[in-house]
């Protein structure tokens, strides 16, 4: 893992800081500095709520390097309520219970460790929305 690279994305990984386009109003995550909707500059930071729903998902049975010890884990495309979509792991859920459309919310978790002495990478994962579960 590259320390500076992970440091640069800390606001995104910890707080879902994206951008809002001052021209067309679209919320943008991950940040990209040029609005993909109207191609105008978009560099105004905007923190997303972290609530959304599962757009698609899969449970991995073989992993890239550095993720072997976490198998099996479930990854998803999450459609945020502000519009943008992102890719993340799901957590605190039985893989068999994940459904498309399931409401989820962001939590901060350990994503991986780089060995015993290496960096620990934290970032967003998504779990089933707790408030809604307790409300019903």
């Amino acid at each position, binding site marked *: 893992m590259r320390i500076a690279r992970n440091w640069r994305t800390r606001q995104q990984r910890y707080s879902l800081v994206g951008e809002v386009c001052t021209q067309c109003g679209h919320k943008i995550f991950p940040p990209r500095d040029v609005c993909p909707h109207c191609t105008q500059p978009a560099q105004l930071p905007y923190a997303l709520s972290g609530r959304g729903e599962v757009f698609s998902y899969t449970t991995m049975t073989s*992993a890239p390097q550095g993720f072997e010890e976490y198998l099996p884990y479930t*990854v998803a495309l999450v459609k945020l309520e502000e519009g943008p979509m992102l890719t993340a792991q799901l957590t605190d859920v039985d893989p068999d219970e994940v459904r498309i459309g399931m409401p989820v919310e962001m939590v901060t978790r350990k994503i991986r460790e780089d060995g015993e002495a290496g960096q620990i990478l934290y970032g967003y994962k998504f779990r089933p929305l707790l408030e809604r579960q307790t409300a019903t």
Partner: protein
Amino acid sequence: MRDVSIIGIGQTPVGELWDKSLRHLAHDAVVAAMRDAGIERADALYVGNMLSGELAEQEHLGALIADFVGLRGIEAFKIEAACGSGAAALRLGYMAVAGGLHDLVIVCGVEKMTDAPGADTTSALALAADQEYEVTHGLSFVALNALLMRRYMHEYNVPHSAFAGFSVNAHRNGAGNPNAMFQSPITAAAYQQAAMIADPINLMDSSPICDGAAAVVLVPSDWAGHGRGAVRILASASATDSLAIHDRRDPLFLEAAYLSSQKAYRQAGVTPADIDLFELHDAFSIMSALSLEATGFARRGEGVRWAEDDGARIAIDGELPISTMGGLKARGHPVGATGVYQVVEVVQQLRGEAGVNQVRDARIGMAQNIGGSGATVITHILAAE
């Protein structure tokens, strides 16, 4: 702009070729193409390759291979566009000849994947995806395709078994290709029972990790004459989309495949109905369905219907033969070489040299090579002279 023709093709068998190094694979394909074209020199060599740095610990392939095949001194570069590297190299060669900068260009796609341990290869393939926002969360390239397939099955209410025909067709055609990695047919039942990799993608939805090299020789069509070997490039077009699936306007629509095929149809002056065979990028069976929709052969959600009845309509004698020499699934997917293999196979078909897999009366063939999960898409349309 000059018209460009292919006058020579070469390919190595695809598989786990432990006795062949990267440079030997490239050598075998380039020398075969030069011999087929009847040439002993070239102005330039463009090498399509994705992973030589990661998996063979070797970059700088242009000069390496030019020297190794006896062409020391000529212009030579490596071109990288993930799994679309092969067709990207061909596109560059096409531009050089069409633009009048070179007259005699060799394009080689080469990949050496099987020397490295499996986990290394899995990680290397994920370099095609967005490192900071996809791969950092532990996704493999298979997982990204699984996300697409799951969503497709959900949105269009399609069972996994509906995709079986793509795999059955590819393996049926691989059985007739002596260069294919897999030369045994499979059944729809075997497809259903295959080991799961990332649900819903199983082993039979996926193209294999392998080694291989393929090459073509390009010249201005004026030079090519009307001999047996010459095949004209009617269209060469590429387009891009976001690397990350989550950044796309519609994840189930391969916009770059749409854009590049539309450009190609216009250049060639043809419509999908004119295409006699289609070498599409069946790295995963979901990609076959999405490719057929983006290129105008099916409406949204109906690409998978081409797989019905064990792929009868996409078979060699079907309405639209695809993966005619086995495709990525059965011929194999040596990633940076694949785009050149596809075009070599279209040339085989248009020359009438496809053996038992020959598509009858094949006049116009299309090849479409996809980089990543759809971020680079390059389409070529070829016609018999």
